[in-house]
């Protein structure tokens, strides 16, 4: 059922990871973490594959994927922007930051730009409360963001990165 034709097919890597686990069903969450790292997201087909591999109903896999906010069933943009919505950031203007990002990117939180460059999301506290309000782009933290111009400049840095010839997924 699965397409194994492409040369950089991540399925064999995933299967090997699963085969090497001493306990499989008990490690469903660990497997999903690994799969999301390999594939970038967890589409239906992949969930079904994992279910078969572990010999459990695919409804159970879906149940777990949909329960945890860390897992995503939609492909993400090249850069993931996360606005911290912890209480400390909230009282220091995280909502304004989020609105400004939504305005500049032209998307709502949870969406991806049409050029697949940015996904905008929010998360709860990254522990950099001293820098509130903060956002994180691909793991890099930007703090004390109050001016729209600052945000524009940061986004511009990512926009001006040389584009990859093809995006092979």
């Amino acid at each position: 059922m699965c397409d194994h034709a492409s040369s950089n097919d991540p399925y064999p890597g995933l299967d090997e990871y699963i085969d090497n686990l001493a306990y499989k069903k008990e490690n469903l969450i660990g497997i999903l973490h690994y799969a999301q790292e390999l594939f970038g997201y967890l589409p239906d087909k992949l969930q079904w594959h994992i279910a078969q591999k572990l010999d459990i109903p695919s409804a159970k896999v879906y149940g777990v994927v949909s329960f945890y906010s860390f897992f995503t069933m939609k492909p993400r943009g090249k850069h993931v922007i996360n606005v911290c919505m912890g209480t400390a950031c909230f009282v220091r203007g995280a909502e304004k930051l989020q609105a400004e990002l939504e305005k500049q990117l032209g998307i709502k939180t949870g969406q991806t730009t049409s050029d697949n460059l940015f996904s905008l999301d929010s998360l709860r506290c990254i522990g950099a409360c001293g820098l509130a309000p903060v956002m994180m782009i691909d793991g890099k933290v930007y703090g004390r963001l109050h001016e729209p111009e600052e945000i524009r400049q940061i986004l511009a840095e990512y926009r001006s990165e040389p584009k990859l010839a093809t995006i092979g997924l």
Partner: protein
Amino acid sequence: MKLSNTDALNALKAQSRVLLENRRVSNPVTTKEAQGLPRNVLICGGPGCHSSGGPKIAEQLEEELNRRGLSEQVKVFRPGCFGFCEQGPMIEIHPDNTTYCEVSVEDVPTIVEEHFIQGNRVERLLFKDPNTQKRFASDLPFYEGQVRIALRNVGYLAPENILEYIAADGYQALAQILALDPASVIDVIKKSGLRGRGGGGFSTGLKWELTRKSEAKQRYIVCNADEGDPGAFMDRSILEGDPHSVLEGMLIAGSAIGASYGFIYVRAEYPAAIRRLQVAIVQAREHGLLGKDILGSDFCFDIELKYGAGAFVCGEETALIHSIEGARGEPSVKPPFPAQKGLWGKPTCVNNVETLANIPPIILKGADWFAGIGTEKSKGTKVFALAGKVRNVGLVEVPMGTTLRQIIFNMGGGIKNHKLFKAAQTGGPSGGCIPTQYLDTPIEYESLTAIGSMMGSGGLIILDENDCMVNIAKFFLEFSVDESCGRCTACRVGTKRLHEILTKITEGNGTLDDIDKLETLGEIIKDTSLCGLGQSAPNPILSTLKYFRAEYLAHVVDKTCPAGVCKSLLKYQITDKCQGCTLCAKHCPANCISGTAKKRHVIDQERCLKCGACMEQCRVAGAIIHH
């Protein structure tokens, strides 16, 4: 490498002592005297300092020291969080105990030239007390009144070097208890009065005893490192700054309850903490501190990491257990308690990170020492992540019984931008807001519950006069709606209804009846929810209703938001200070501002979107106001 017995551990400790010789010495020398002596530079590795340039500073400093031929004499380390996040990135230089604040990469050459080569402190980088303008090179006022037990090694030891931990009495407590009867270890913990630091406040010793008493071949110890309270980073700092203390705490707990296996359930959102734990576990195994026949005893124990996947409810112990088992993190009915039937049906003891980090010092210094700190019912210290509108954001560890006023106004330095204190929020989405009249309440499990809040895991958010309490309650309810697992109706539907009512009120459509509904529904949810999340979700509303009822009434009756936060209730007006520059009219997206040049303009209230664009554009102070 494997330590075969306690003597081998002690020998390694003696040998490793040299590593800490030049750090936080008891008799600091002056910067001049330190010339030519071996020096240690500590660069704060906490999340805040890390994000604001810590790694770059370390790199530059090493390069510059190398260039000036000082790399042999001056060693650079990156320990965990110093706690004083507001002043980050921070660096400490020893043995002349000098702390520099808000250091930037550009300051590095000056520090090397002035401090290390000329032997003079760089005055402008020393902490300046905003009230007295006095500079401090060490003993910063922020640390006055703090007692570091759980954080004893955080910001002091290099977290990825087990030898430093061993040099600082690491694994000595483990060595001691291996010679003792488990029951007597449990007795020590019971006598110390240590209670769960995750917020519940259940006696740790008693929890251990109950787990030990459950008959089974296999028992488990689980470390709850799923710090979900938004705005809290206590556990993260311990995991990143002192992972071995958590491992040692688990080893001691494992031995006491008769478990041979432990799990650390850690948030996937904390990659640095995960990496540190992985390194620590490998090192502990290499030294025979995890594995078979630990330190020559017959005790066998190993630890496995399990990753969370972003679900707040997994901080609840039964939900956490289900998540470790690979399922949805939904809580189950208690009893049976995990101590009787937990992970895979076996007796399981779940302890929080901070609780476990307290264990080794209690064993080493004794139950009486620990019980001597704190109040009658709450012993020891508590770590708080102080954040929000306070001047000094950071991590503080204070003896139980310290008052909120001491934390906020002494360590915290008061409220930012000379605003007025309004409330302190403890316990995150499960806690409540504490108003001014309770600032002198000593911090204890019972006293905080009595005033409608709770100890919680240690989030302490300070709110000022510009924060709207209805909006804050709405923020937490939004969180609870998001994070409710959906298993029981009271929580799933109830929190949603509460959130809807709050939204209605903040949009100016609330009625007096809505306030009654909030109270009734809140109480019902508290009484009928299955787990702690639901039982405490209404707390932010109930506590704000109790102390800030007038603010709710202002929203409902007068249709105003006194703090000026709730947009729908704001009314923008142009005063007679207007000079008629027309800037506001040009930028109004609704075209609802009219007026001729050099004459006072007027806003058409009917069409106003309340976007605030006019106010942002206006260059004359007081010409546009909102109320």
